[in-house]
């Protein structure tokens, strides 16, 4: 059975990526199970999707703990330990990372036990097409799939979109497929865990603790500050001080996260550690003083 997990962020189309790959494998004659996983979160929050595919009926269920293929649509997720991107990766897990940076850099950074492949950023690739790109890249690694099955699955799964969006998605997925054409067959179907010789689960017996400890209450203030939700951003709002008229309230008031503070000189400052990149401030500013800068570009500028 193939066990495949996609990681990305809400809005990048990773649920759709799982469905595209699932449909392609189903059309190739395999039994398939695919599912997205996300909680109550919104655009930008870490989400994942998984696909099981096998020649025989699938009875396994739930989150894939030990993937054969792990596709990471956004390297920023690696900075969020709670997103569990690399959970369960072993020596035989192929990791496919979608980034414009070179493989040597990420080999060193991640020091993975298994193979690492890079799915390069493609010309004209916007964030919302990332799902199609990742599905194309993943499809290139599986012997059961070819470009024709991939294209058919995309047309089926995106049928509700405009012809133009479908064409763009198809073009990008094909380019991603072509970029990894040399790696076909690198992902192997793994056998299930054997009942003869397994790792004993480390169960424990829960002791009764007093309600002051065991009632689910939060006594600390502002625990959300501990979560670096700024990592959810695809684009960051940047204020041009030359254009800002110092109205002191519009962007700060409309910010749903309350991460824009205005100082005594009526200058707004954005807390990028917690700005989720919704860009409502950009739409509200009547003087067009706020622009959206892709996060990677902003990071490069910061370094320079």
């Amino acid at each position, binding site marked *: 059975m193939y066990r495949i997990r996609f990681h990305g962020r809400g809005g990048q189309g990773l649920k759709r990526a799982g469905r595209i790959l699932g449909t392609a494998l189903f059309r190739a004659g395999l039994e*398939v199970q*695919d599912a997205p996983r996300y909680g109550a979160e919104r655009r930008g929050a870490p989400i994942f999707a998984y696909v099981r595919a096998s020649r025989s009926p699938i009875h396994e269920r739930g989150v894939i703990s030990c993937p054969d293929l792990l596709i990471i649509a956004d390297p920023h997720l690696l900075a969020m330990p709670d997103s569990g991107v690399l959970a369960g990766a072993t020596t035989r897990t192929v990791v496919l990372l979608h980034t414009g940076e070179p493989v040597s850099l990420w080999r060193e950074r991640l020091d993975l036990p298994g193979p690492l492949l890079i799915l390069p950023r493609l010309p004209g690739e916007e964030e919302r097409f990332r799902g199609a790109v990742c599905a194309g890249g993943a499809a290139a690694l599986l012997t059961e799939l070819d470009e024709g099955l991939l294209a058919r699955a995309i047309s089926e799964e995106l049928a509700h979109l405009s012809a133009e969006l479908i064409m763009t998605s198809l073009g990008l997925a094909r380019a991603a497929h072509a970029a990894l054409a040399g790696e076909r067959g690198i992902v192997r179907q793994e056998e299930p865990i054997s009942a*003869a010789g397994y790792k004993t689960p480390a169960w424990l017996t829960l002791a009764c603790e007093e309600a002051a400890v065991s009632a689910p209450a939060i006594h600390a203030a502002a625990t959300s500050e501990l979560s670096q939700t700024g990592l959810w951003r695809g684009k960051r709002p940047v204020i041009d001080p030359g254009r800002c008229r110092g109205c002191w309230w519009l962007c700060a008031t409309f910010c749903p996260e309350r991460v824009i503070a205005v100082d005594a000189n009526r200058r707004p400052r954005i807390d990028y550690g917690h700005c989720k990149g919704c860009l409502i401030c950009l739409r509200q500013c009547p003087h067009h003083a706020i622009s959206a800068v892709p996060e990677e570009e902003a990071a490069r500028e910061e370094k320079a």
Partner: protein
Amino acid sequence: MTRTLLTGNGAAAWGARLARIDYLPAFPITPQTEIIETLDGWIEQQELVCRLVTLESEHSMLTAAGAAAVTGVRVFTATSSQGLLYATEMLYTVAGWRAPLVLVNVSRGLSSPITLEPDHNDVLAVRDCGFLQLHCATCQEVLDSVLIAFRLAEHPQVRLPVLVNLDGFALSFTREPVEIPDQSTADRFLPPFRAGSLRFRAGEPLSAGVAVLDGSTYSYFRYQAHLASLQGLAAYEKIAAEFAALCGRHYEPLECHRCEDAEIVFVMIGSFATKAREAVDRLREAGERVGLLRPRLLRPLPVAHLRRALAGKLGVAVIDQNLAPGRGGVLLTELAAALHGSPDAPPVLAGYVGGLGGREISSEEFFEMHREVRQAVTRGENPPPRLLFTGEELRAVRKLQQVARADRLGQGGEQR
């Protein structure tokens, strides 16, 4: 017949569509909402002729559903978790009306603490409301069960509402290959609702919500609903056999997987039981005589079937995806009562609580439960009840507790 990938929610919607439902009262709640959205899309495209009405709560939704059903139209509705509990007063009430509607519940753990992930405390909290209960393990079974449920609800000897249960996330948002029967096949299996005495017309008044102020009359009506529920078992078997003849998929009241020569048997309901099925196949490969018993029908409880299926077995591991505080697992209690007095009941009946709030159950855990039960059989005593919970999970909880108490402790403070 089309074989395609559908989510559990999509499958439930397809079941309702093929049943040609007339009336769909609705109120949104995760993870059920997609069922209504799907049906709404079809109604808008005029692919389904049905009246959708959005209500202001699940309580009103069930009232509307029951009221419509006793006027003789085919009624479908769906909810989850807190919504099911909010509707509970009306669940009892419309079952008392003997309203033959179908309600899909997408199981989700109950508050508190709040969660979106699945377990069975919601559906088991309404275990005794008078609805018949069908529990599904696959998306295919969801679609088929909705069709079967209408036949069962509308059966003249039964005429009770039926609840079809599927697990949130594990089925609701998971796509699997599903065979969608042709409309003509569905029509042959489920003809238009012959409502019989269920009529409400101008000049023909009907009062369903009647009061009886004496115990004898009350006892009669309540016990009649119980007897009708018991009739549901034989009716179910006949309907399921008809379904199998038409569609080739057979749904016994109990799914028995490799039970015949098994010594140890897992007992579970719902979609997590497919994990147990997978573990059974692996244990069989390792030479262990083990099986899985999955009740599909929980109300009425197929007591005689359970006794037969478990006769002569050495040990049973009941895995409850629910928790009755102060008692333990609900399924364990149900099974113990069903087996009591059976001369060849298994000597070991071990209770496990697992999968609460969607907590995964790994293959290794099934292997280990099997080992524990086998050991208990050798020793000749029941193992104590166990929560499937590891040291690593407790460490993660401890970390959250430290964050939750941070301001009382100061920066990086010690634990009290």
